[in-house]
């Protein structure tokens, strides 16, 4: 990641340095022709046109725009998606600990605030794309909020334990507090993992758990005839197919409505 960051800043620095030098030499040329400094600068600017535009063009050609950095960084990522809120949470936790005196208050909402800020917009965006999946996304958001509340309740319990006995030394108190934080972080990871697995295994239409798993393919194979697990919604809304690489939902449309249509024998 750091290597990518250096590769991104290198061409930007070089282009900036060269364009500055280019403008300076042009200005010197006009000064040599007898112009005063201001007129020389104006003429150089006029000759060069918009330096911002040149810079942007150069960055685009060298794939050094901020967008390229984001794409590059996301390509470097190897961890699962749910790790991002955790990492963000931990970073913001340490940042807030530097400034806010009440440690317990800082820790309590930090991780969950990050998780909610990252995951709820994703859910809402998916929701707006597939309107008939609103129950599923509402379920996801609600359970995420529930997990946040549960996580915070756990943290409050841990803090109560920490504040309960008079610790013999200051060091002892710090060790217990650090242990509390570790337990809390592990708990948060576990809760988010459970949330993620639970929502994946639910019907995208009615949010009921998927049933009747059917396995096919070879368990040792990853590419050809890979092990695939299909589960169906018992209300007939669709099938979820999961293999090692990804999961795909195939909706069944309205065949159930068709079956119970009035007047059908």
């Amino acid at each position: 990641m750091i290597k990518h960051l250096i590769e991104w800043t290198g061409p930007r620095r070089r282009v900036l340095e060269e364009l500055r030098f280019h403008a300076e030499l042009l200005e010197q040329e006009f000064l040599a022709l007898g112009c005063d400094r201001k007129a020389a600068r104006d003429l150089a600017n006029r000759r060069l046109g918009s330096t911002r535009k040149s810079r942007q063009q150069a960055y685009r050609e060298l794939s050094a725009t901020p967008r390229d950095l984001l794409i590059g960084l996301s390509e470097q990522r190897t961890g699962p998606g749910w790790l991002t809120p955790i990492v963000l949470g931990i970073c913001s936790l340490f940042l807030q600990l530097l400034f806010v005196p009440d440690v317990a208050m800082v820790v309590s909402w930090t991780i969950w605030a990050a998780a909610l800020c990252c995951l709820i917009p994703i859910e809402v965006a998916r929701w707006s794309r597939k309107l008939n999946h609103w129950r599923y996304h509402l379920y996801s958001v609600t359970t995420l909020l529930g997990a946040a509340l549960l996580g915070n309740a756990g943290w409050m319990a841990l803090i109560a334990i920490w504040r309960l006995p008079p610790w013999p030394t200051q060091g002892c108190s710090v060790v217990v507090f650090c242990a509390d934080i570790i337990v809390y972080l592990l708990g948060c990871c576990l809760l988010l993992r459970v949330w993620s697995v639970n929502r994946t295994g639910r019907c995208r239409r009615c949010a009921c758990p998927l049933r009747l798993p059917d396995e096919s393919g070879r368990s040792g194979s990853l590419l050809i005839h890979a092990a695939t697990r299909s589960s169906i919604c018992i209300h007939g809304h669709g099938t979820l197919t999961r293999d090692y690489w990804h999961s795909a939902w195939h909706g069944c449309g309205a065949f159930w409505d068709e079956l119970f249509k009035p007047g059908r024998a």
Partner: protein
Amino acid sequence: MKRRGQVDVLQGTMDFLVLRILAREKLHGYSIARKLAELSASALQAEEGTLYPCLYRMERQGWINSEIGQSENNRKARYYSITPAGRAHLRREQTKWDSFVKAVTTVIAGTEGDK
């Protein structure tokens, strides 16, 4: 900024032209742009936003080298020089360009009577 009568360097020919210029002497970016305009009687213009990325890319490919030197206005400047790999690439590009020009000239000559 482009002036009247000036044309942008054809896409794909910038590397070739810059290598041709650098094959003669070691220059900094500004001088390369000036030289290009001078040799083409101000007909060709290398845009700053294209020239510097091109130099950077060619350096990454190993066709040119760059080193910091003192410029004519006593300022630190980056001087570019061609490498043996750059000379070999230049020879290949020169051959390609010659056959391209020959082919286009033949087509023009062959269709001269159609006008």
